[in-house]
């Protein structure tokens, strides 16, 4: 018996083997992500239609967004995806300490992302760049309120996904402290990892589409 705090994993009663359990979870997660794709997909369709109708509005509106903050956040999220991968890897090679530090880093990156988003939102709200009927800023184009409706809906829903991801990472951290993840069992890490990369990927599309028009 080793002295490490490794908790053995028990396969749920209705599965025949660990492999069946792991593969089921992975397939389930992928199907769930397909669902997420359709969820965001509809918003991208809205974006495409309104940009097609009002290209000049989108050209003007993107100038009111700070591409520097956007680029910074893109780098932050890509870094967080990397630390997430490393966290899964650490569990696979039984390095609990580095697992915990990589998860913590991912959590910090996510927090930084939301912090920057908060600064950006505050600035928009301050200048009246608000969705729909709350829009009060001065602009040339007639339909700026539509752009900011789309901007807040898309980034807001994305931010909500980040928040859910952070809660999941906290849950993973607690379980990591208990030594539940190791080379024989790391299913939840892998699943949250998939989710996290998806959320990252959504931002990689949002950034150029909203900030880098023209």
């Amino acid at each position, binding site marked *: 018996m080793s002295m490490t705090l490794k908790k053995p994993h028990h396969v749920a009663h209705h599965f025949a083997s660990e492999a069946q359990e792991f593969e*089921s979870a992975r397939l389930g997660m992928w*199907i*769930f992500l397909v669902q997420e794709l359709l969820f965001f997909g509809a918003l991208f369709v809205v974006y495409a239609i309104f940009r097609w109708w009002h290209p000049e509005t989108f050209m003007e509106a993107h100038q009111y967004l700070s591409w520097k903050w956007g680029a910074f956040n893109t780098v932050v999220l890509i870094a967080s995806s990397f630390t997430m991968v490393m966290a899964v890897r650490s569990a696979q090679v039984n390095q609990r300490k580095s697992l915990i530090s990589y998860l913590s880093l991912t959590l910090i990156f996510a927090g930084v992302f939301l912090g920057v988003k908060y600064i950006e939102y505050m600035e928009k709200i301050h200048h009246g760049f608000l*969705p729909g009927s*709350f829009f009060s800023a001065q602009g040339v184009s007639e339909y700026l309120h539509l752009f900011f*409706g789309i901007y807040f809906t898309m980034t807001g829903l994305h931010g909500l996904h980040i928040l859910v991801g952070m809660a999941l990472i906290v849950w993973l951290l607690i379980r990591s402290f208990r030594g539940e993840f190791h080379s024989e069992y790391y299913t939840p890490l892998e699943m949250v990892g998939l989710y996290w990369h998806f959320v990252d990927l959504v931002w990689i599309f949002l950034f150029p589409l909203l900030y880098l028009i023209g």
Partner: protein
Amino acid sequence: MSQVPLNYLNATKGLKSWLFTLDHKRIGIMYLMFIAISFGLGGFFALALRLELLNPKELLFTAKQYNQLFTLHGAVMVFLFIVPSIPASLGNFLLPLQLGAKDVAFPRLNLASLYIYVFGGLFCVYSMFSGAVDTGWTFYTPYSIDTSTSVISMTLGAFILGFSSILTGVNFIVTIHKMRAPGMTWFRMPLMVWSLYATAIIQVLATPVLAITLLLLILERTMGIGIFNPALGGDPVLFQHFFWFYSHPAVYIMILPAMGVISELVTAFCRKNIFGYKLVAFSSLAIAIISFFVWGHHLFVSGQSDYAAMIFSLLTYLVAIPSAVKVFNWIATMYRGSIQIKAPFLYFLAFLFLFSIGGFTGIMLGALSLDVHLHDTYFVVAHFHYVMMGGTVMAFIGGLHYWWPKMFGRMYSEFWAFIAWAFVMVGFNMVFFTQFILGAKGMPRRYYSYLDQFQPLHAFSTFGSWVMAVGFILMAFYLMDSLLNGKKAPDNPWGALTLEWQTQSPPLTENFIETPVVTRGPYDFGQEKRS
């Protein structure tokens, strides 16, 4: 020392053992209960609005109350009853049994989906008491942005119910891929499983689009984001596109599981292998795929381009092919079968007859020129009730009778089942066949008053609704009675070959004493002994 063998119903006792159960069978039974209550509620609204239509002028309700009634009837029947009906109740109960598994892949997620369903249902009920919504269940903008009735709570309810549906879909797909018993190859799966698989694909791919659409509608009402509001530069037709991108495939979420039930019924009561197993299986997938490309036929008069309308019309016709493949295969299955006329088979016949009428009139409505005349008339109402009620509800009830002995270990009364079937069948045709005629004569849907000349037909339709109600009330009574006084059911009362009949009635908590090893197809009648 009790005589009753241990089964999933009596294995553990107390309310808590049900509220926290992870057993797919118990979850299925709880779903069944809520779905039955929803059906009763939706039916009550239907009776109320038929009553109003007895008279050409105002009778019991004002115009606004009438609008609220048909909206609630539609919303309850669609979101709370028919979308979850077969998959969540019968499907949940049967899927692991038919695959030879102990449970679905994610039992906790399964229980979560039930709670999400109840939670969403509470929002819908709240909406009824807080200025019931009057937009029609389709929530078309811009009216749904402006009306003073409680749109938000109802759409939020539907939004939440959508997640319940998505989670069931994810669970079923994984279960079918990963949980099959040894020897259960894809082509040895019962056709019910194939149709649940096709249904789950639509649930996962279409429902999120409804979710985002309803969310945008809520944002429209709270923040005026303007995407669907023409006054703010938005596009109300875009709402219709988004809404039907979900809601047309959703029609197949409703009918595909019914087709699965029908395949089980016809083979069991004809004691014969299904005619063309693979074609019936693949036609489910074909329907699922085509279903995503036909939504535009709801917008023939909404101002979409003529070319789009032509293509959507053509694609709509395509759905008829896999549907007809199924119908003809079921008929061919009966040929030279050894037919037993039991209640489930009666509902199979009802389905075949009514669904065919519903399908044919669907083709008529898919024709551009005819649709312009019939659009938004009672003809459309009659068409989708023939498919949804004549198809899905008949199959659901047929399946309920078929699996009743397995679920509760009791036999229902064949005599009363026949009487109730006759009432439902006669009543249904009185209500809805009349509406084909009304619609063709130009009676528009969703009006609480009408021209005097339509009164005889409207009155006949209303009388039919009472006949049908008698049938359903009878059914509720004899089914409840069977739980207390019914004859004890044998393990396999119908002599069917699918796996759920090879275990005891009601099944054990773990379904089978030993994981079954499958060596033959699900309907190999006459070859049982050889295996």
